[in-house]
């Protein structure tokens, strides 16, 4: 078995253990099975992520978070450390776009901020931060961020490639289940 085969086999195992009664062992016929989001967000890699619901919704085909196996694999592949920056940028934009209108508006910013700080900031502080972010990144002046604005801002960020992680956090806190994809 080649490396690619063995790692997708492992991923399939992970996918199956989420819903053993739903997912068949045999995938050769490409059955159309989708796992609901409530089960997927219990995965250890996603459990602590404040954006887990949005992540699952973004990668699902129906927009409600039900992932087929291919969607599942795509999700992990995109979040992998070695996936290219442009890919991550596209998916990041989709994740932060809460109302899915292809723009990140003030409301989206507020929701993002509240998820990040767990509501610890006062309303004035939230307003200040959102205003400043919009001011910094909005290049065309329509008081919402289009993808080009977002991409321009993120491409200059120093540590976006690993979503700001350091190896110490990975080692200590994260489960390195991204490894299967490293061997492809």
């Amino acid at each position, binding site marked *: 078995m080649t490396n690619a085969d063995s790692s997708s086999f492992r991923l399939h195992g992970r996918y199956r253990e989420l819903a053993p009664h739903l997912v068949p062992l045999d995938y050769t016929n490409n059955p159309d099975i989708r796992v609901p989001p409530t089960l997927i967000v219990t995965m250890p890699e996603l459990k602590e992520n404040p954006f887990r619901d949005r992540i699952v919704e973004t990668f699902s085909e129906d927009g409600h978070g039900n992932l087929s*196996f291919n969607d599942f694999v795509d999700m992990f592949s995109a979040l992998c450390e070695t996936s290219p920056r442009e890919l991550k940028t596209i998916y990041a934009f989709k994740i932060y776009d809460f109302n899915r209108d292809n723009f990140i508006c003030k409301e989206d910013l507020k929701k993002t901020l509240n998820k990040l700080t767990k509501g610890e900031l006062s309303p004035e502080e939230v307003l200040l931060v959102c205003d*400043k*972010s919009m001011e910094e990144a909005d290049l065309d002046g329509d008081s919402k961020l289009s993808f080009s604005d977002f991409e321009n*801002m993120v491409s200059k960020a120093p540590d976006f490639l690993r979503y700001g992680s350091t190896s110490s956090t990975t080692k200590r806190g994260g489960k390195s289940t991204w490894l299967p994809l490293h061997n492809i």
Partner: protein
Amino acid sequence: ESLSEGEIAALKEQLEEKKKLIVTLRNKPWRMKKRLVLLKEAQKFVEEFEGALGKGKGKKLYAFKVMMTKKLIKFKRDFENFKTACIPWERKIKDVESHFGSSVASYFIFLRWMYGLNMVLFGFMFGLVVLPEILMGLPYGSIPRKTVPREEQDTAMDFSVLNDFEGFCKYSFLFYGYYNNDRTIGVLKFRLPLSYLLVGVGIFGYSLMVVIRTMARNSNEGGDGAEEGEFTFSWKMFTSWDYLIGNPETADNKFASITTSFKESIVDEQENQKDENIHLRRFLRVLANFLITCTLGGSGYLIYFVVKRSQDFAKMEQDKLSWLEKNEVEFVMSLLGLVCPPLFETIAELEDYHPRIALKWQLGRIFALFLGNLYTFLFALFDEVNEKLETEKSIRNATIWALNQYYANYSSYFNTTDVPPPNVSPADVIRGPCWENAVGIGFVKLVVSDIQVSYLTILVGDFLRAVIVRFLNYCWCWDLEAGFPSYGEFDISGNVLGLVFNQGMIWMGAFYAPGLVGLNILRLLSSMYYQCWAVMCCNVPHERVFKASRSNNFYMGLLLLVLFLSLLPVVYAIMTLSPSFDCGPFSGQDKIYDVVMETIEQDLPSFIANIFTYATNPGLILPAVLLMLALYYLNAVSKGYKQANMDLKKKMKMARDEEKNRRNNKDSTNQVMIDLEDLLPKKSLIPPPIEEEPTPPGVVNAKGSKSPKMKPGAAAKGVNLQKDVSLAAPNPRAPVTYAPGPRRGPAGNARGPQPGPSRGRGRAGPPR
């Protein structure tokens, strides 16, 4: 089969391409199925044709090389992780940082750095001075300097005596007096006195080098702490969460640290937005400085006055003095230390600085205050030394006289000139006062009392206070937590200065008390754990959490100043004071540095002695040393500038490329974006729209005139706008002849049993 030259070349090229594809496959942004298919294809191709080209072995070698490269990369990564894991207390400090901000964490980072420095100093002192004396020198009790004198032997083991570092402590390897002045000791002929002197000087030299190197490295990062980014808040919002976190505790810390980081930036932003009334501010600042200078002057005079009085008291009868009069100096100094810092802080409110800058001013002022303490202590010590030197003269004369008497008596009694040395037990020999020991003991006592006071302050001032506030709150009239006294905040300036002055004491005292460095190691180690615990348990974050300045050069600058201040007394003692005649490794010599001269004359070839006599002109040495230091610092800083230059060049190049691309109206600026077309989701995730917003601006329309909201540069692109902006809309390749109709929404292909990869939305190409 026989292939022509051209065919072989073409085949080779294809082979290379396929191999490259295999290696870079995982970086391609394709869907999984596509990747698997391509991989199988490429592998089959390579297998087939590499054989045909007669490179059977080559394939194995290639596979082997690839495997080794992968293993090497993995090994490097693991090693990096291991190195990071080896940094002590990294997790503790990260915990503190996420809850209290980077300025409080900077104190602990400074503490850890000090610990590293002291470990090296301890290594020098212990390995080159203490160990040889213990292992190869004469044991305890063999010579007078290593034995407790007869009159003190009864009390030598009492706890109260040991607490004052008298008794057995004084006559142990911890202090200067224990070391013997034999030129070489042991089988290895280890030159202990020379080693002692060189280590003593080397400690300063090494500390100087390390401080300067750290300063140079810090200055490369530059800046005064304010983050100079175009997108400070945006980056914090979108790129701060670490998607690889899976551990709940780490996640908690991350949330706290993100919140703290936002608060820090908010403080910076609010400072920038403040209204400026320059004249009033300047006046207030001048007034504040004036008040503080008055306070400092007053405290300086008070200390001088009290010390003068204590000198008078010392001449009087000790029994007639009250406790207050006996301990007046310490009492006044402690009082000043308690009262003045809060006073400075209150006056500093007038100045209205950014918290980071206010911290620096506070540090500077308290530093000036503590200098008064320092000079008092040295003053008192110097008096004691002079006194002991006087006593020593008389005792030394007495000893010589007694010895002469003994010889005279012996030779006259037994009528010989061959007189054996007197047979006296080491404990009974007359001992000189040994001023170096007194100095060493003075420093050790000071350091120990400092440790005790600081630990006690934390216990009472922070822990007890927190306990009282917490539990008494249930039955108290006003809210203890919100009003007075509430929980304490971590006092950064006080702690940093305490650390800096402590190190100064160590540097000064290490020459006379080799055990002091070991004591300091224990102190720093316990301090780290104790203070980390105290901070997390009893303190609350500052009201205005501010970001520490990125270069810790201010702390380093203070440390450097203190290093020079502590160098002076030691150098003075080495150069001018004469060592005691009966204790320490330099006993019997005129000056301490005579050891070096002796070594040069006896051990090294003669021409070096000549060179040395020319070179030891102080007028030559001092400028040379200063010059070397300056060169070292400038060299280290220049590296930083070179790096900054490279970065700027890169940025300029990037900006130029962007401009060029935009101007040239290229259709695809990025190969990856072309690849990504494949990946764009096949149906929009947008629920059926409520209004007819032109959601994918410019996608449907050819010339972009319907999208006034697009970036000016991008709007100039041609038909293939799908690469640029929108991601969710269908992507018609056919020319557009009608306005966008209502979307069909996600109903389209999704519900059907087709879990395959993205079908083209209106594309001609077959799905893979």
